[in-house]
Every structure is written in structure tokens, then in C-alpha cells.
């Protein structure tokens, strides 16, 4: 139980990590994350990188959809914009990684504004379907604007070069992913300590009241689209430098839905939830594959069913979570924590 926790300044009360215990554990976590690559296998590093890259994009989506309440089915199109921007800028203009990173974010943000601006006259589900249309349109462009994107053949790029340090291995890339992910988490948390984040939540909860409080709905919804698209673009840049190529099939409607599943299963509007969601959605397919592999002796045909079963499990998990724990993994986490914090008492 937490007792004796008194704050004497407003600043102390407003801090993100409010007790020494919490600060300690966060510190431990950061140290762990930094030392992790030194004793992890290549496979684990690969998974960690994938998770980190997905986390950045998911953070953006959770700002737009989880906190500001604007459902977007076009998020992966924006990740694609970031990815293609990096690929094109690095192959055609020879721009280095550190320049491509913010530029990808910015390009994606502009595209997000283009999608967002006309959509914002619409409410709720009409907006959602408009973003679906945007996803389909971008999908088409990625596949068919071959002069720019090279269509289904895609574009290959060489590894990122950071002032002479070439990021060729999983190990190397991990540190960049970690840095960008930590930055993303911090910035998101910062956003919700200010009027901008509060305005987003107000718009989600009751946009009419928000307007009467002086919040310009259109402007703030655009901000939400821009910020979330920026995150998507950055994630796309990381992706393309990680895989060292870009092809259209990674930026389809399915991926957009996967990101939505991530933030819903993790917890809408919660940074911690986004982290849980990203980890969950990256590891579950691997887990499924491992389970099916282990069944190979008894059911030799098991692996044939990998793809459809992935689909079934994906759909099943989404439905299961929404019916049983609609607030996501983060709510489960809090329940477990509360149980231990209050133990042996019930309340």
C-alpha cells in the first residue's frame, strides 16, 4: 500500500513518475532495455526491432483514435508514405538516414492532413469509412504509380549510415529503434500533460462541450491527424531501413486493421496499453507458428493451416478481448497491480 506519499510542490504532484519506487523501476527497465541486445539472440533482437517499429506507429494511431476518438482505417497507408519517402529520398537523392527520418514523418503528416481535412466535416463512422477509402486509394498508388514507387517490385535501399556507423545487423539497428521508441513514448506522454492532449480527449468524450469551452474542433482534429501521421511516417522510415526494401503489400488495409487491433487489445488512449498491444500483436503470430510447429509430429498437415489459422486466431482474439476486456491489456495490468498493492486487503 502506498502511504506517506505527500507532495509539497505542484511540480512534484504533476510529475509523470511520482514516487521513488516507480522512478526506480523505470530506471531498471531502461537499463535492461539498453543491455538487452548484448545477451539476446538474433531472433529476439529481430522481434524486438519489429515490436519497436510497430510501437512507434501504434503510438500515433492511439493518439488519433484512442485519445482523440477519430477512427482511422488508413494508418498503414501513412506508414507506407513514410517508407516510400525514405526509400525514394535515399535512392534518388542520396539523403542520409537522419535526414530521411524527419522528412518521412513530415511527408506522412502532410498526407495525413490531406486525408484529414476533407474528412473532418464528417462525424464518427462516416469519417471511418472515408479513411478506408483513403487507404484504398493509397494502396492503388503504391501499386500502380510505378514511376515513383516501382510498383510491386518495390525499391531496395542500402543500410542506414549514421555518421560512419553502418546499421547492418539486428544488433545495430536495435539501438536506433530503442531511441526512437523511447522518444515517441516520451513525446506522447508529454502531449497529454498539456492543453493539446486534453483538448483531444475532450473532443473524443463530448465534442460539443469541447467547442463551447473554446476548442476549435477542426484545428485540433487536424493536429491529431498530423501528429499521428508523423509517427506513422517515422515508423515507415524505420521499417524500410530495417528491411532494406519496400514493397506495397506491407501497407494494406490488413495492416491498418492490425494496428487498430494493437491499440484496442492494448488499451485505447493509454501509452502503456500501446506498448502491451505492440508486444502482443508482434509475438502472438510467432507463438502460433511455434505451437503449430510443435504439433507437426502428430499432425503433419498442421503447418499448412498456418495462414488461415493465423487469420482465425487474429479475428478470435479481437472478438474475445472486446467482449471480455474492452479496456484492453492495460486494464488487466492495473487490476493485477491493484490486487498486489492492496494485498492482503480487498479494497
Amino acid at each position, binding site marked *: 500500500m502506498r502511504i506517506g506519499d505527500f507532495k509539497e510542490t505542484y511540480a512534484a504532484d504533476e510529475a509523470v513518475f511520482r514516487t521513488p519506487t516507480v522512478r526506480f523501476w523505470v530506471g531498471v527497465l531502461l537499463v535492461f532495455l539498453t543491455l538487452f541486445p548484448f545477451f539476446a539472440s538474433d531472433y529476439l533482437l529481430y522481434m524486438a526491432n519489429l515490436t519497436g517499429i510497430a510501437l512507434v506507429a501504434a503510438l500515433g494511431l492511439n493518439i488519433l483514435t484512442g485519445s482523440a476518438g477519430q*477512427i482511422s482505417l488508413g494508418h498503414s497507408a501513412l506508414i507506407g508514405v513514410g517508407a516510400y519517402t525514405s526509400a525514394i529520398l535515399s535512392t534518388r537523392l542520396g539523403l542520409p538516414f537522419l535526414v530521411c527520418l524527419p522528412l518521412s514523418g513530415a511527408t506522412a503528416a502532410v498526407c495525413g492532413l490531406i486525408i484529414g481535412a476533407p474528412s473532418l*466535416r464528417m462525424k464518427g463512422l462516416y469519417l*471511418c469509412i*472515408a479513411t478506408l477509402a483513403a487507404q484504398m486509394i493509397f494502396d492503388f498508388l503504391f*501499386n500502380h504509380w510505378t514511376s515513383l514507387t516501382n510498383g510491386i517490385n518495390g525499391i531496395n535501399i542500402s543500410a542506414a549510415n549514421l555518421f560512419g556507423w553502418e546499421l547492418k545487423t539486428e544488433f545495430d539497428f536495435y539501438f536506433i529503434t530503442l531511441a526512437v521508441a523511447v522518444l515517441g513514448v516520451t513525446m506522447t506522454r508529454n502531449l497529454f500533460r498539456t492543453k493539446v492532449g486534453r483538448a483531444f480527449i475532450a473532443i473524443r468524450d463530448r465534442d460539443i462541450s469541447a467547442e463551447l469551452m473554446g476548442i476549435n474542433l477542426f484545428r485540433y482534429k487536424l493536429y491529431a491527424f498530423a501528429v499521428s501521421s508523423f509517427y506513422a511516417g517515422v515508423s515507415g522510415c524505420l521499417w524500410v531501413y530495417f528491411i532494406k526494401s519496400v514493397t506495397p503489400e506491407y501497407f494494406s488495409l490488413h495492416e491498418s*486493421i492490425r494496428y487498430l487491433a494493437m491499440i484496442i487489445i492494448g488499451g485505447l488512449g493509454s501509452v502503456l496499453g500501446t506498448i502491451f498491444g505492440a508486444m502482443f500483436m508482434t509475438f502472438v503470430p510467432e507463438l502460433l507458428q511455434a505451437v503449430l510447429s510443435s504439433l507437426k509430429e502428430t499432425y503433419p498437415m498442421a503447418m499448412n493451416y498456418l495462414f488461415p489459422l493465423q487469420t482465425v486466431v487474429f479475428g478470435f482474439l479481437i472478438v474475445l478481448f472486446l*467482449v471480455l476486456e*474492452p479496456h484492453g491489456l492495460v486494464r488487466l495490468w492495473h487490476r493485477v497491480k491493484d490486487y498486489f498493492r492492496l494485498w492482503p486487503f480487498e479494497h
Partner: protein
Amino acid sequence: MDIFLQLMVSGIAVGGVYALIALGFVLIYKATNIINFATGEFMMIGAYLLYTLLVMVECPVVPAFLLVMSGATLLGFLVERAILRHMLGQPAISIVMVTIGLAYFLTGLAEVIWSPDYKFFPAIFPRKPIHLGFAIVRANMFYGFVVAMVMVVVFSLLFKFAKVGVAMRATANDQMAAYSMGINVRRMFTLAWGFGAIAAALGGVIIGNIGGIRPDLGKIGLKIFPVVILGGLDSIAGAVLGGFIVGILENLAGGYLDPYFGGGIKDLAPFVALVLILMVKPYGLFGKKEIERL
């Protein structure tokens, strides 16, 4: 000119089927205010059910149709009772995602049960192409269109005049009031899902008959969104009109523009139209702007 007429006719034929599938969507939305992203998958299951009955069980055509309709109703009932009923009061995004999750579940399930290969129906309708004088229509498209239109009329009449239809509309309009009038709201929801599933399943049967069946037939369900947005999410007449517009649009666009872009325009056109329409009329061509009370 011939090409134009040919494309128009194909467009109308497929538009009629889209109208039927869109009806499946609108019936559910009108009664429950839920956007069913799994409409396409209901369609796909309907097609597979008929295939199983006709080919694997060798059931005669008419009983098979009836069994498909019952099967679809059962599916709709199940979905409503097992899943949607627990989602009452949840925010819109959760309900949207639940139907998306359901869509994936059904698609994967279909692939596991029936394998990912194309399956084809035996001939249900006579095979001869129909000569309309100015254009030729494939037999299965023509008969499919006829069946679709008949079903649309039946459903429209049901919704407008039958006691059950009026009750459903009342429930959609104001649940509380419906309860106080003695309407069993829960049963209305279940019925709505049942009817919606039947309409979608029949649409699936027709489409499957035209082009064959695959587990991802449900992707056609995505095209229903331009249809219902054009027509207004809760208008049956709108769904029909929207269906025709989309059918004609995609055929014309595909026919004339595909050669320039190397394909893909046919699927894209309805979405471009969707965006353009929404920019001008944010509630669709026929949708009603909701007046919010403070």
C-alpha cells in the same frame, strides 16, 4: 457505343446484386445502429453453404436455397446473441472492431474448412446468354439480377408494411420508446441480424455463381461501403440506388480506364467516388443529418 451499353448492362446487373448485399448491411444498421464490417463474410459463408449443399451433399436446388437461408439466419442469430449482445453500450470503435474481428474469423474458418482453392457451383440457371438486343448478358448475371431484385422488393415490403418490419424500424429509431410500446427489443435485434444475414448470403450465392467462390470473396463486402454511403447508411431505397450507381461506375471506369493504369481502377473507382461525395455531402446522398440535443 456498343461497349458503353455493354458496360452499362453489366453494371446494372452487378449493381442489383450489390443492392441486395447492401440491403443486408442496411437492415442491420437500421435496426441496431451497428456497422457490420463482416457483411462480405456473411455473403461468403452463404456462397460456401450453398456449394456444400449442392456439391458435397447433392441436395436439389430449391431445398438447398431454403437451407442456405436458414443457415444464414442461424449465423446471424448466433453472432447477435454470442457477440453483439455483450457489446451494448460500448463505444463505436469497439463495435466496429468486433465485426472486423468476426470478418477475419469467418474468412480464416472458411479457408480451413473449404481450402483456399476456387470452388464453382454446378449450373443452377440455364446457361444460354441473354440477348437484350443492344447487349448480351451472361446467363448467371441476368438471373442473378432477377433474383436479387425480387429479394430486394420482398425485403422492402417486409420492412415497410409487415408488423415485424415496423417494429424493427421503431426499435432503430428509439429503443426506449420501443420497449415501452411492448416491443421485444432484443428479439428485434436478433431478427435484424437474421434478415441481414439472409440478404447478404443470397447476395453471396449470386456472386459466387458468377465468378466462383474463394475464402476472400468477403473482400467484395468492402465495396458495400461506397454503396451505402452513397445511399445513406439507413435508407433501403438508397442502398438499391447506391448499388446501381457503384455497379455502373465500376464497370464504366474499369472498362475505359483500366488499360491506362494497368488494372485496379475498377476496384478503386467506387472509393474515389465515395471520397468526392462525402466532401460535398458528409452524410451521403440520402442520409439525414442528425440533430443533436444539448
